[in-house]
């Protein structure tokens, strides 16, 4: 089972001013995989995703995507290359309607009829959003806003979808619904890098996982193995 890596990160270092947030991390993601990156608050998960999306510039390291270096590609062009990030805190446009938010997701796509079909597909995936399509996104509940953020990202037809703590601040029922959707998206063949603090849920959904601690990867492996490992049990699952 040798899949070609879609994304290959080597020795990635990112600093904020003098503070090194990533101390040289390496990870690979194969086409179609659902990989999770778990770690406690402040470990560097968001920093990793922002660097991959191009919002932060690494001090050093290698980031190859589809066998080409991403490092000199500006953030806004990475979307057109199929890399989409649903940021921490969702980053929805509160003063745009739900539908306008979704259309922003299709900003890099030019085919109008395809965009219209995509809209209907998102509404089928999230019927709640269909009811609220003309509502300002800022008036939605947290869970609905997370749906907007995910649907918006899907509008760009991502090859690699990165999700930063999609369950943050949501009620348990909504968390379940969001994770169900993540599995659906994965089943459709989209490669996913899922960042979570909720290690149990993330590892149950993912095929492989990485554990990030203080800017370094300390453990990696099949999700089921990580889920059973003592270290993960102790640190993240309160066992």
């Amino acid at each position, binding site marked *: 089972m040798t899949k070609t890596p879609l994304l290959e990160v080597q020795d990635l270092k990112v600093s904020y001013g003098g503070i090194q947030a990533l101390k040289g991390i390496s990870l690979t993601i194969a086409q179609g995989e659902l990989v999770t990156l778990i770690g406690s608050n402040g470990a560097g998960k968001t920093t990793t995703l922002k660097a991959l999306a191009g919002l932060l510039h690494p001090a050093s390291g290698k980031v190859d995507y589809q066998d080409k270096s991403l490092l000199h590609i500006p953030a*806004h062009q990475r979307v057109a290359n199929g890399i989409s990030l649903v940021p921490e805190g969702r*980053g929805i446009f509160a003063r745009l309607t739900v539908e306008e938010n979704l259309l*922003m997701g299709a*900003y890099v796509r030019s085919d109008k009829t395809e965009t219209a079909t995509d809209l209907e597909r998102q509404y089928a995936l999230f019927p709640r959003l269909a009811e609220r399509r003309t509502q300002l996104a800022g008036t939605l509940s947290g869970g609905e806003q997370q749906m907007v953020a995910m649907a918006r990202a899907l509008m760009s037809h991502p090859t690699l979808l990165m999700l930063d703590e999609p369950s943050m601040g949501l009620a348990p029922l909504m968390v379940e619904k969001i994770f169900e959707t993540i599995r659906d998206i994965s089943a459709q063949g989209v490669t996913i890098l899922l960042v979570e603090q909720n290690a149990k849920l993330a590892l149950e959904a993912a095929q492989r996982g990485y554990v990030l601690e203080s800017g370094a990867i300390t453990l990696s492996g099949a999700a089921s193995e990580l889920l059973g490992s003592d270290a993960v049990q102790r640190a993240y699952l309160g066992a």
Partner: protein
Amino acid sequence: MDIFFQQIINGLVQGSVYALVALGYTMVYGILGLINFAHGEVVMIGAMIALTALQALLAAAFAPVLAVLFSLMIAMAVCMALGYSIERIAYRPLRHAPRLAPLITAIGVSIVLQNLAMMIWGREYHSFTLPFTSTSHHLGGAVMNDVQIGIVIVALVIMAGLMWLVHHTRTGRAMRAVAENPAAATLMGVDINRVISVTFMLGSALAAIAGFMVSANYGIVHYYMGFMLGLKAFTAAVLGGIGNLRGAMLGGVLLGLIESLGAGYIGDLTGGFLGSHYQDVFAFFVLIAVLVFRPSGLLGEKLAERA
């Protein structure tokens, strides 16, 4: 009663100009949180270019209507290039600097443009006459001429067009997205530098149109004309709620009305002590009153949101 009606007309005409200029301030503020104090000078440059182009086109025996139309288009093109360059050269390098830096730079750009205009066009007043007669129409006891009617109609059409662009096109949607959350807009694939450039160019095109309008209305252009006009349009933008497009339009028209009604009645109000040449004070009363009592303006949201 005749004075009242006449001042309403004058106020609407002047207010239309303020509204167009205020839109430029408010669009830039909405996207960058920057008060582009050089915007008034862009209006002045627009007027100057229009004057020069109009004279040249008429000298080249263009039909009057074409000469007017082309000179306006040339002024718009030059101002768009100017607005684009101002952002690229003066503001973009300071994008992440403390807020005072771009503000001081804006004042610097303003001084540079004024002096440049003075070097090119001199310190004297130039008369700006349209190559056709503007008929006066009597409405009740008040008078409104063709130029004034034209100003109000063109301003309305332009504002309707701008609202359509902002609310119903892909570029307009991107502008609103960048204004609200630049990082998230980047994640959607929006090149925010491009959106910012477009915003400056749009505002500058409106400034050129406004410059043409005031010149045609008063018949005079001068290298210093942009200063007071810019300050008043800024006041209008603050009155409506800076960052808010509808607010800029409302604030512009309201300020025009307040000013002209104030000028019409200031003599009566002060027993002849102050004359109508004191009309400028009203704009600044309005500015101070808004800043004291409602800093967010009539239609604005809490300022904290962008601070």
